[in-house]
């Protein structure tokens, strides 16, 4: 029997606000445990929440960027459950009236376009973090993350493959980054995805029993988790067993998922409207203000890069998929006005060095204007391409200014014909064997001699000039 997979996603993203959702504590990641806490976010008796307006603005922004309807009359609800990382024993969230509803994100996988529907986006507070201390065999709790604002973005079960999920997440991540809503650092937990998955025989209208895998925090792990869970469910069905509706934990190291405690399923959150907060009314004016402040979004940017710059689709996908690469592209372009060159540099050297040094796009720190300058320096024949790559490595690692670096290190291309000629003559004189071979008609020695010349010139010469002069000198010997 052939099976098809039905997938839905719940994405949690931490918002890039300076302060928490209901108090003025810092949201900064890291920090000594329990230093970004006050009586409000640590759930002291008698404290009350005060909503951070920025959170609402960020939610509206995300909703508009994902084609959602914005709910005009909003309320918060309490989700009640006991856990030591939740100091009030309830999470303030939105059940009945989420701020954004009925949106969609369009994706493209292997040339096929698809629209993924977004059911809703709601605002809520993050919980703290439990840290198990194996030394003392005890569990410690850090409330720094308590009350950091989150958006939960819930899709409809519109995905049929891991590729679609990854395409959607890539797009969503870019949108959240473009709009400044979140930094989406998965390794810091500011973007986390829960995957709902079920399988059914191809063509069957009835959905299979779904499982949920929680908090998987890298794209690669998500792809592996989906494949693993899909296989597990198919095997169960083929063995005549039933898929149990449950929450599972994906262990990426072991490449397998495990059922979490079964009481998770029986959890009754006893939702009810949060009485400590008043309803929030969002008027047209506010929405239009936010709409006007939206930057160019990934989709529009992609279209523009294709039509305006005629760049390869693959390169455009990669560059517009990251706010940080876009920033590098646009700043460098601003200086050199050569989109093709900038794109080539990003796809080549920038990504190569980033990968070699395990640098995430957001941590790339060189001044992109300097990349534009470097491109101009190559174009103007000040340095040749190979030297430029060397210079760029220094720019990437130490953010050097290219012109000064080239000057200080005497890397300027030698464009002086007489200087080149002198070297060519020296090389010819020093390699009689090669010249003999050349005379016998072996053209291959040209390359060797060219290499020798460049070596003598320390790579700084304009290769075109060297080739020209070498050819001239050699032809004299014929």
């Amino acid at each position, binding site marked *: 029997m052939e099976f098809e997979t039905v997938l839905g996603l719940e994405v949690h993203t931490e918002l890039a606000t300076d302060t928490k959702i209901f108090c003025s504590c810092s949201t900064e990641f890291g920090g000594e445990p329990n230093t970004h806490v006050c009586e409000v976010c640590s759930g002291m008796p*008698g404290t*009350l929440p005060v909503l951070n307006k920025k959170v609402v603005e960020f939610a509206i922004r995300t909703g508009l960027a994902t084609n959602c309807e914005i709910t005009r009359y909003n309320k918060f609800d309490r989700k009640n459950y006991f856990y*030591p990382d939740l100091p009030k024993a309830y999470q303030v969230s939105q059940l009945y009236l989420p701020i954004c509803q009925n949106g969609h994100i369009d994706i493209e996988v292997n040339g096929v376009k698809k629209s993924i529907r977004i059911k809703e986006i709601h605002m809520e507070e993050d919980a703290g973090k439990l840290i198990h201390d194996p030394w003392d065999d005890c569990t410690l709790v850090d409330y720094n993350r308590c009350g950091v604002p989150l958006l939960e973005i819930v899709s409809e079960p519109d995905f049929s493959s891991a590729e679609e999920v990854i395409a959607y997440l890539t797009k969503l991540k870019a949108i959240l980054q473009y709009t400044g809503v979140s930094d989406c650092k998965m390794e810091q937990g500011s973007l986390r995805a829960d995957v709902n998955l079920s399988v059914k025989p191809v063509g069957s209208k009835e959905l299979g029993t779904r499982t949920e895998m929680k908090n998987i925090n890298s794209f690669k792990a998500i792809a592996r988790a989906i494949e693993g869970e899909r296989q597990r469910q198919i095997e169960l069905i083929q063995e005549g067993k039933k898929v149990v509706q449950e929450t599972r934990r994906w262990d990426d190291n072991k490449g397998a998922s495990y059922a979490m405690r079964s009481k998770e399923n029986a959890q*009754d959150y006893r939702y*009810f409207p949060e009485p400590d907060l008043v309803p929030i009314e969002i008027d047209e004016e506010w929405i239009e203000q936010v709409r006007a402040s939206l930057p160019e979004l990934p989709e529009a940017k992609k279209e523009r890069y294709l039509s305006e710059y005629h760049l390869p689709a693959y390169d455009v996908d990669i560059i517009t998929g990251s706010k940080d690469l876009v920033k590098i592209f646009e700043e460098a372009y601003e200086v050199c006005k050569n989109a093709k060159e900038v794109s080539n540099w990003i796809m080549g050297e920038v990504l190569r060095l980033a990968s070699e040094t395990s640098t995430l796009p957001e941590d790339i720190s060189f001044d992109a204007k300097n990349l534009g300058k470097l491109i101009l320096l190559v174009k103007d024949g000040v340095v040749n391409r190979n030297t430029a790559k060397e210079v760029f490595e220094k720019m990437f690692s130490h953010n050097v200014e290219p012109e000064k670096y080239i000057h200080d290190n005497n890397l300027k291309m030698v464009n002086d014909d007489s200087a080149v000629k002198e070297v060519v003559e020296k090389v010819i004189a020093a390699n009689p064997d090669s010249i003999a071979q050349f005379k016998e008609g072996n053209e291959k020695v040209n390359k060797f001699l060219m290499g020798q010349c460049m070596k003598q010139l320390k790579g700084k010469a304009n290769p075109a000039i060297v080739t020209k002069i070498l050819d001239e000198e050699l032809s004299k010997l014929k």
Partner: protein
Amino acid sequence: MELCQMSGLELGKKIKAKEVGVVEATKAVLENIEKREQSYHCYVTVCKEEALAQAEAVQKKIDAGALDSPLAGVPAAVKDNMCTKGMQTSCASRMLETFKPIYTATAVQKLQDAGAVILGKTNMDEFAMGSTSETSFFGATKNPWNQDHVPGGSSGGSAAAVAAEEAFYTLGSDTGGSIRQPASYCGITGLKPTYGTVSRYGLIAYASSLDQIGPMAKTVEDVAEIYKIIAGHDKKDSTSVHQPAPSFTLCPDMKGKKIGIPMEFFGEGIEEDVKEAVYHGAKVYESLGAEVEEIKMPAIGYAIPAYYIAACAEASSNLSRYDGIKYGHCATKYDDLVDLYYQSRSEGFGFEVKKRILIGAFVLSSGYYDAYYNKALQVKALIKQSYDDAFAKYDFLLTPTAPTTAPRVGESLKDTLKMYLSDICTVSVNLAGLPGLVVPCGFDKKGLPIGLQLIGKAFGEETLLNAGLAFQTATDFHKKTPVGKEA
């Protein structure tokens, strides 16, 4: 007149005039506390040293002309469910027996800023759940008029402290009548302000949508003055209304005022003495030139179930944070995390609290939400509407505060359903978010006080206080004191 018999404003005046020192007044009231606490148990915590130190500091500020409140220097006490930085705040529960807050409630802070000397924290029903102040983990408070009777609740300690002259005034909190009913039982004046006028920041929540802090004192003038100090928007409480702090001068003119008496407040179980005293009150208003009419408000009949559902639902969530992890009582023996919760909460909470948490968790549980909680919200809207209709015609309503005078100690806990039903006169006011003022209006045959409840429209505190002052001026029930009558 003996110092402790004075009203807050009378003492404030003498302090201003340098006829009485703040330390002297504080010492006098501390002496009363020492003498009478054995009998009445109004306090959970008396902060003698801190109070004397505060008194000295306040005196210095007064001398320097830095305090202009007419109540500056007057010793007061606050209910033990309001957070006081570094001072034990127990909610009369074993759960918070050793809890010392790291901040002070806004209302208390405002009093302190106005020069109040805080004597300590008054006794109450555990987590404000009860109508008698008997559910306190630290033992019941007794009614100063008769120690065999309860002072009412849940702000029983705050009411008894004023009646027994163990504080010049106090703060209470009122979720379903917890300021007004004990004020009535103890023969003092108490105001439950409009929901949202006094910040709840630092008030340990029982039912967030109903809780409100308010003043309890010997006279309407005192209550009005305290109200002016504690009311006003607080940016730390999103539900506090954006209104400037109240400023008004009382003007007790009742001519042409229209007063309604809702018949539903005189239902089954109302004592004849209470009914008589309330109708006598109506006569007093008529004699002052007001028009009084009997009216019908059938929606009031649904108030008690709606109140207990809404209040318990919110309480079950509000009290979930007491889990033994961060602060408060933590069991010493447990098997695992769930058992830690189970043991800590079983040991930390008393019977009435557990009962209300269970009711609340039940009515919110999946499948029951619409049948109970949502229904309660609908009833709440109905009741609000029926009050709105009444206030379209009447300036304020006049009702009993409770169907009876203070029950005997132990009687109510034997039949808690009866105790819940005795909240009939007060809970609808909380559901509608309205202000309610209670002033003494008589005594029953046993000599126990009876209070008259005046209900006003939202933000109609000024109207109520004027009406209260008019009544107080025309009568002398508020001058009666149990002090000196004790055996």
